[in-house]
């Protein structure tokens, strides 16, 4: 394995947060699963990492492909099943550094949408039955890759760093689909916050619980690691103290007012008025 691959942020932070815990056996090289403590209790940590030898050629740079989607589903369903009859639902930490979903003929043909539904559905089910789910965005969180791995979390934490990016589509493709030039697209992205590619603009949408400035996210210092660990622990505490298991904690930002307004109107109109 090349040093560049070893340094994938997802892999780095999965090792750091689990104290180099051994990986759970039976998963492919692209899906790393480790069981370790979080605030003294058992937790499952999951990351998708680049696998240059992936047998699916369009899934070699950290994308979420067919197998990755279903293996994420398995990693989460295992925890749901294990704690089915237990009062304590162990937390799941998604360490997020996904370049995107995989784009390819094999992927479309074998139903990558269904594989990603497997993963998103698993995370969502875990959260709804009471597993605290925390998403830690350490690198890219792009489109379907993010929907499958992390976007169903009770709380999202991101590093405030130029390599951290949340988006729906690459700039080249987004320009082509919207029939804009790349420079026009970039001009809009600069003044329309939901279109922007930087993490500050994303944070302004209210979707993040915390945004962390670190000294060095790639080769973290001891204090970087301590800050991240304590923030993940605080997120867990916040989730446990919150009776809600839905995603309403993401609502309320200035740049997302319509999302609240539409919900208020729907609620007011939901039941027919009595004559």
């Amino acid at each position, binding site marked *: 394995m090349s040093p560049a691959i070893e340094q994938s942020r997802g892999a780095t932070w999965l090792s750091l947060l689990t104290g180099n815990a051994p990986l759970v056996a039976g998963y492919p090289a692209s899906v790393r699963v480790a069981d370790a403590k979080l605030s003294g209790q058992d937790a499952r940590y999951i990351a998708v990492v680049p696998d240059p030898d992936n047998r699916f050629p369009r899934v070699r740079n950290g994308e979420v492909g067919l197998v990755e989607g279903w*293996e994420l589903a*398995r990693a989460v369903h295992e925890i749901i099943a294990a704690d089915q009859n237990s009062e304590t639902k162990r937390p799941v930490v998604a360490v997020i550094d996904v370049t995107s979903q995989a784009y390819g003929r094999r992927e479309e043909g074998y139903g990558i949408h269904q594989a990603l539904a*497997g993963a998103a559905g698993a995370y969502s089910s875990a959260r709804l039955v009471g597993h605290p789910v925390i998403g830690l965005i350490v690198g890219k969180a792009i489109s379907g890759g993010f929907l499958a791995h992390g976007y169903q979390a009770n709380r999202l934490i991101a590093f405030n760093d130029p390599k951290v990016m949340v*988006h729906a589509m690459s700039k080249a493709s987004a320009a082509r689909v919207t029939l804009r030039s790349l420079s026009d697209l970039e001009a*809009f992205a600069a003044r*329309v916050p*939901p279109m922007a590619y930087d993490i500050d603009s994303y944070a302004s*949408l209210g979707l993040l619980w915390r945004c962390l400035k670190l000294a060095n996210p790639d080769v973290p210092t001891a204090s970087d690691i301590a800050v991240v660990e304590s923030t993940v622990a605080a997120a867990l505490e916040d989730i446990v103290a919150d009776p809600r298991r839905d995603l309403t904690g993401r609502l309320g930002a200035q740049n997302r007012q*319509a*999302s609240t307004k539409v919900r208020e109107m729907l609620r007011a109109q939901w039941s027919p008025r009595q004559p």
Partner: protein
Amino acid sequence: MNIEEMLSRNSFIELDARKRARALLDADSFRELIDPFERVTSPWLAQQGVVTQADDGVVVAKGIIDGQPAVVLAIEGAFQGGSLGEVGGAKIAGALELAAEDNRKGIPTRAVLLFETGGVRLQEANLGLAAIAEIHSAIVDLRRYQPVIGIIAGTVGCFGGMSIAAGLCSYLVVTRDARLGLNGPVVIEQEAGTAEYDSRDKPFIWSFTGGEQRYHSHLVDAYVEDDAQQIRGVVSAFFQKGLPNKNRSELYPGFLACLAEVDASAQATPETIRAIYKKGFSS
């Protein structure tokens, strides 16, 4: 379908989103929430000089199906390719959230989703993506109580994050004109090249993502004619059937077993996909 049948049928595809919703609900039970006269339009399109639409391309219709309370969420493919922005996305997510809440209060509200969408509206990129994550969450919540039925009639099809939403539904219904896939053909071509995916080769695209292929690969539950009565009948039958033993999105052992048999060194063909998936995923 013979000529007589064709003349007597009511095309579903030719209906706009509002008429589709009306066609699925019991007679005179249709009641639209946040209707176009309330003019809740996209705050983001206007900023970019793009014409808005008074319903933002999503119809939320409350009503009755077979005597039971229902909500139909219909996406209008003719507006911005059925793409979901903040308002349209919140309409769908918010309605599904209220339907789940109803069930927790003992009101058995059920939902039908009419997918006609390219996925995230790129002019509202991250707010579309966030709304779609909330739609996923709300489907998974609601499907614990009532079947959530997805219909892809065509001709836009169902792509992007909304194809994941389709994959989360309890039951999925398609016509021959439907397409279901994660990535739009143009985007795959842009990201991977024409050798991987030629967006101008329509028969090729339909052979992989078309409704008939998806049905024969067990990725959807029903394959129907473009006929409003037939589609209504299928919806009714699935609601009567109740919750599936397992949702398709929970069948990871079956899918992983099938994918282990795929020779990934060779390019996929529609025939190999049908052969690999022919046994289904339930075992």
